[in-house]
């Protein structure tokens, strides 16, 4: 990630923070509501700075998340790679949408991500009921505007 603006470094930092947030210990009940932070940051990079994030990098990020979470290895990798593929096909259209419409799209994207994760986890017998997939997709969609506004603000402020 050799660049003048330093966005690469910023993105790396945000991804680390997202991984920590994804691991932060909560009770099993509250962690049902946990937004998929890593997925949101990767989506943000894919939509607004696609030159920094691709299928390969998303895959690596997913694998790191699997290893840290102790999930079945490959679950988040396959999900984020697929998410990256959809986003690369459609980022031009997606980023021109107003925020509320983006939220609806993020709901779908995170939902697809969750279905893939659930599929691989299901191989090990940990298939979640659809309620859990829905709830975390909804909370992810709800925090999406916050993520976008905050990251855009920081980018503009420091000219990243």
């Amino acid at each position, binding site marked *: 990630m050799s660049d003048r603006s330093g966005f690469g470094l910023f993105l790396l930092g945000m991804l680390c923070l997202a991984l920590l947030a994804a691991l932060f210990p909560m009770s099993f009940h509250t962690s049902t509501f946990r937004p998929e932070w890593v997925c949101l940051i990767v989506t943000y990079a894919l939509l607004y700075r696609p030159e920094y994030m691709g299928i390969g990098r998303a895959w690596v990020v997913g694998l790191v998340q699997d290893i840290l*979470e102790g999930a079945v290895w*490959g679950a988040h990798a396959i999900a984020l790679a697929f998410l990256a593929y959809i986003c690369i096909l459609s980022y031009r259209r997606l980023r021109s949408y107003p925020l509320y419409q983006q939220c609806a799209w993020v709901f779908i994207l995170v939902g697809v991500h969750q279905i893939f994760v659930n599929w691989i986890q299901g191989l090990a017998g*940990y*298939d979640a009921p659809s309620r859990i997939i829905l709830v975390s997709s909804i909370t992810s969609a709800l925090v999406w505007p916050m993520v976008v506004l905050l990251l855009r603000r920081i980018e503009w402020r420091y000219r990243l």
Partner: protein
Amino acid sequence: MLLGVMAFIIGILYVHTNLLNPVKGKGEALSSAVHWVVDIPNRISHWADQRFASKSDLLEENEALRTELLIHKRKVQRMAALSAENTRLRQLLNSADTLEDRVLIAELIGVSPDPMKHSVILNRGSNEGVYPGQPVVDAQGLVGQVVSVTASTSKVLLISDASQAIPVQLVRNGTRFVVEGRGSLFELYLRHVAVTMDIKEGDELVTSGLGQRFPVGYPVARVERIQYDPGRPFATVIASPMAELNKNRHVLLVFDKRHTVTQ
């Protein structure tokens, strides 16, 4: 596409083979280190809670603990006599002696981020002699078993995890069952309970020690509801775990004599 297939293949290898085992250990070590870092805010708030407790609160707590200690001391006095009597009777019956188990206190430093996977990470590892398969209990009952160990941490699979099943026994009449987790913290399921079985709501279940994994006699769960469906050969029996699976911060690792001898 290729990456997707690769991820899928890794997933299959992870679940169905043990080719990845050496790498898995490295991953665990890394994961537990990060869990330790993530737990720092919780530790700070815990520390602050202890530091900034008011004097009257402390005195009150002290008083309550003293009372509790007194009650327990009285119970222990009777226990000593009873266990001596038990040993004598066992000798009369020529049966093997049950030995006292050695325990080690451990603290939770991480919780699985996936709500479906019920596992926690403890701050004790192989340096302290923790081994895979070791039973873990709290003050109320059985919590789970150790599934993997690094040098200074260990991962515990809770009894409520979907892949966990425990051989148990009804305290009231000694009937043996297998109780299994279904990924819910407050519900365990009893397998293959015939409709004619003598089982009631409120019955207590303890480990039977039959799986050679958990020691005999630790409380596991209490029967919560029984549903008889005429169309099915078995009754649906739901039990609630005794251990406070979602609240406890300190747990006990039990060292089984049998295991330490074979090691």
